[in-house]
């Protein structure tokens, strides 16, 4: 039985005649054989694809308004609802970058999976419409997670990296509570890329206590690609990529205002973000202002042990861990028949205090309360990230060109009370990094093939100030050219491959620091000689997707990826405060290369969905910091007053492996159970030891119960309980201590409300409900034996006012 559904608007099914059908969503509805015998309670499943390429669309939101149910499409573009009443339903499918689809349909017993297609907004432009940019980026062959703005809000987290932590394979390296950087399958720092609006975020990402400099209220959608992504995104992408996309470009003649607020009980964080956007006659704008203020955070402990002393934690609060953030962004653009162009000017500003004992050895006299839980005293760090970014899309029929250009200025300052000889006050490190980037991408679409040609260019200049020394001034240029192709062979088979060529060079200035005696410069110590290096590289990948059945799919990808040594790896020479490690660069380093295999499979058996993703990689010339049997004082007795053990960057071969196992079970339509296990294994093949900062195995499980409360204002309530089980990490590198496991209980309550044109979300979450004392292996303060934050309750309230 093959029964096409009748659609009231005939234009919707006329796919070929684009020019007439344009303003509407394209929809193809095919009903296959009934999958299950008839019963009173009906399930409804389907898939959502891109109408122009036929590629599955993960992360689309499918909403059924009657029972107020929502589902997101998975990585293969599929969704499922259970226990629906047969009868008429109103369905709405939305996806950033695509026109939304709203239909009313009759759900009958014996209906099989439905197929929906969404039309990209920017392709067909005979009418002046405000189009959103294209979001189908990168290959679907690597495991990809998607978080949309609502899901991001519901996490109630104050940083982006922490909001991603619950996803399988994603972690964060924290310094206290305001500073966090993402980790993908154990890779972080310069081994992953964060792209914001298509532009690679360039800060000082080599440092563990350098957080991500992006407003957590801003992204409209986050896509995390786990696996080798340097082919598409360039050097540093070998561990994975986090793509942050802005909300869709506002529709013409629309106006929207939103207000987001967030409160955390633990550190009394107040966060607020206000946004207005609108569009008229092909011109659009968006303005956002955000701020966060937080106090010292509480831990479930009154003391900690360090340097053989038991040190006090007064009032359970870690002194001097407060902070604040002030961000703005202004975007404006134009949308015409030829395409669209926009420009965004934004600034991120964060000032975050560091625990008084985090620099040097903590002493009990430093820890007495200063009477203010919200002040930011020394030591603290201040990061300012200014960015001007522009994206232009030019349409050529079914094909289009994207041109990104951006300027970023990252100014990072670390302040501490030092014994600086120069009149530089408390500024220990001042690093100014200027980055100019340009990307050109050409997208080609044929019937069974889509291709991307890309060119990436980036120039950087870094300078330094301050009485301490780590990183020299340098200039860097990198360029890459690539082509990626996807062929589809029938409905079930998709092959994807790509090639890339890169060239880059770095010029590092020779640096000498004066040695003083009795306030006189007596001589100079050379921190690093002049270093001039260039790197050229070829890489490629090949993979396939095989989806023989609706409920079963298989993906495999083999890629070669690469990473050029970063400036710190080539030339750093200084003592890292807190760790007492003297880090030394190595100017002989070569390009690091990875050979990575990724496999994943999706299987659905009735109400249980399982995803297994496995990865294995061999890295040639993997760069890491290796300890030596040398103290700073032997290098120079006067240059390193705070000297410790010398660690030098080396390269050797290493292996990585592991995976994620996710289960999604919906016993009834009100109940959903999700659980994801993750594991990372790695081994340095030279030292035969694990690599440092490897995340421990963990399982994150959640149960959601959705109940209709039937009000006009509040339609339903979603209750959740979650549990994180983290194993002990005994697989540690030399001089890295094991961290014990823990179990963390959390809960959430959320609802959506609507009053006329005003709608909104109210979410409350609780973290560490049992107030457990535990250590996080990836925390910077773990090195000081400090526990993680105590119990925290968060409330977020968002209002949206929209005219369309």
């Amino acid at each position: 039985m093959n029964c096409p559904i009748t659609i009231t608007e005939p234009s919707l099914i006329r796919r070929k005649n684009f020019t007439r059908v344009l303003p509407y969503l394209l929809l193809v509805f095919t009903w296959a054989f009934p999958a299950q015998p008839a019963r009173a309670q009906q399930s409804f499943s389907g898939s959502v694809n891109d109408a122009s390429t036929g590629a599955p669309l993960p992360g689309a939101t499918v909403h059924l308004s009657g029972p107020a149910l929502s589902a997101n499409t998975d990585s293969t573009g599929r969704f499922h609802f259970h226990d629906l009443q047969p009868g008429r339903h109103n369905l709405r499918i939305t996806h950033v970058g695509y026109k939304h689809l709203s239909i009313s349909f009759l759900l009958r017993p014996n209906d099989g999976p439905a197929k929906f297609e969404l039309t990209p907004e920017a392709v067909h432009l005979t009418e002046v419409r405000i189009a959103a940019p294209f979001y189908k980026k990168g290959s679907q062959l690597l495991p990809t997670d998607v978080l949309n703005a609502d899901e991001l809000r519901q996490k109630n987290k104050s940083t982006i990296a922490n909001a991603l932590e619950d996803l399988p394979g994603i972690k964060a390296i924290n310094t206290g509570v305001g500073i966090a950087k993402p980790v993908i399958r154990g890779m972080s720092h310069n081994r992953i890329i964060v792209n914001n609006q298509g532009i690679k975020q360039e800060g000082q990402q080599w440092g563990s206590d350098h957080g991500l400099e992006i407003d957590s209220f801003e992204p409209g959608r986050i896509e995390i690609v786990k696996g080798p992504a340097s082919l598409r995104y360039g050097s540093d992408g070998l561990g994975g990529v986090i793509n942050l996309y802005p909300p869709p470009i506002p529709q013409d003649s629309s106006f929207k205002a939103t207000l987001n607020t967030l409160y955390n009980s633990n550190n009394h964080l107040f966060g607020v973000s206000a946004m207005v956007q609108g569009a008229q006659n092909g011109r659009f704008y968006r303005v956002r202002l955000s701020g966060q203020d937080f106090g010292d955070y509480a831990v479930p402990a009154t003391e900690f042990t360090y340097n053989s002393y038991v040190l006090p934690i007064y009032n359970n609060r870690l002194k001097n861990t407060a902070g604040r953030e002030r961000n703005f962004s202004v975007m404006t653009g134009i949308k015409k028949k030829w395409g669209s162009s926009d420009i965004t000017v934004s600034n991120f500003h964060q000032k975050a205090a560091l625990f008084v004992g985090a620099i040097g050895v903590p002493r009990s006299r430093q820890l007495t309360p200063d009477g203010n839980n919200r002040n930011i005293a020394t030591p603290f760090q201040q990061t300012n990230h200014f960015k001007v970014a522009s994206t232009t899309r030019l349409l050529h029929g079914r094909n289009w060109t994207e041109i990104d250009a951006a300027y970023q200025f990252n100014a990072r300052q670390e302040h501490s009370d030092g014994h600086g000889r120069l009149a530089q006050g408390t500024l220990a490190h001042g690093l100014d990094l200027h980055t100019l980037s340009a990307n050109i991408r050409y997208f080609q679409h044929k019937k069974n093939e889509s291709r991307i040609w890309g060119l990436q260019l980036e120039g950087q200049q870094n300078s330094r100030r301050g009485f301490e020394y780590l990183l020299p001034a340098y200039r860097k240029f990198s360029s890459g050219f690539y082509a990626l192709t996807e062929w589809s062979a029938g409905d079930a088979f998709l092959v994807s491959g790509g090639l890339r060529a890169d060239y880059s060079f770095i010029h590092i200035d020779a640096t000498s620091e004066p040695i003083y005696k009795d306030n006189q410069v007596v001589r100079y110590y050379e921190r690093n000689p002049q270093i001039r290096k260039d790197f050229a590289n070829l890489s490629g990948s090949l993979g396939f997707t095989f989806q023989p059945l609706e409920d079963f799919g298989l993906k495999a990808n083999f890629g070669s990826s690469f990473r050029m040594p970063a400036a710190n790896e080539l030339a750093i020479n200084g003592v890292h405060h807190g760790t007492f490690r003297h880090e030394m660069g190595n100017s002989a380093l070569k390009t690091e290369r990875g050979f990575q295999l990724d496999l994943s499979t999706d299987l659905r058996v009735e109400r249980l969905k399982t995803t297994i993703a496995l990865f294995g990689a061999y890295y040639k010339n993997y760069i890491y910091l290796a300890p030596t049997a040398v103290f700073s004082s032997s290098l120079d007795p006067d240059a390193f007053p705070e000297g410790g053990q010398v660690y030098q960057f080396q390269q050797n071969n290493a292996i990585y492996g592991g995976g994620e196992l996710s289960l999604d079970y919906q016993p009834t339509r009100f109940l959903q159970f999700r659980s994801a296990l993750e594991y990372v294994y790695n081994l340095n093949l030279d030292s035969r030891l694990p690599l440092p900062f490897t995340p421990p195995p963990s399982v994150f499980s959640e149960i959601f119960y959705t109940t209709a409360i039937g009000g006009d204002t509040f339609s339903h309530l979603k209750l959740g309980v979650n549990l994180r089980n983290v194993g002990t990490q005994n697989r540690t590198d030399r001089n890295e201590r094991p961290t014990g496991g823990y179990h963390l209980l959390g809960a959430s309550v959320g609802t959506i409300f609507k009053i006329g044109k005003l709608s909104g979300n109210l979410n409350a979450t609780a973290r560490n409900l049992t107030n457990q004392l535990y250590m996080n292996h990836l925390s910077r303060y773990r090195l000081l034996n400090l526990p993680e934050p105590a119990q925290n309750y968060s409330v977020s309230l968002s209002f949206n006012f929209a005219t369309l």
Partner: protein
Amino acid sequence: MKHLVAFCIPFLVALQFSCKNDDPAVTDKEPPVITVEKPVMEASYTAGSQISFEAVIEDNQELAVYQIEIHDDHDGHSHGRMAASPFSYRKSFQLTGKKATVTETIAIPADAAPGEYHFIVTAIDKANNATNFADGSTKEIHIEITEK
């Protein structure tokens, strides 16, 4: 019941991981152990006199190097960053074998600023395992230098 079972599987797997103890001790990851005999805690010295240092340093495999560092604790915040005029001393010494009894005589300049000082002993073994402050394996002795 069926979903209870499904619920338990990941937890069981997690338990499995947390109990697993791979990487047999083929690699030496044990840092040296330092026992400082002299100076003793809160020992007092006159500027211009000598500190006699005596310690036993042991390792499960082979020792490599140790360092003595003396710096002032005058202003009470983090360790000094420059060779400042209050007395400071920093020197490392090579070691061999599994156990070493080390002695050193350190002269305090006659013009050393009086006050509290930290006397710190750190050691590294042949496999590059180092003692550290966090677990107290690096030894810190508080001493006082008084005016001549």
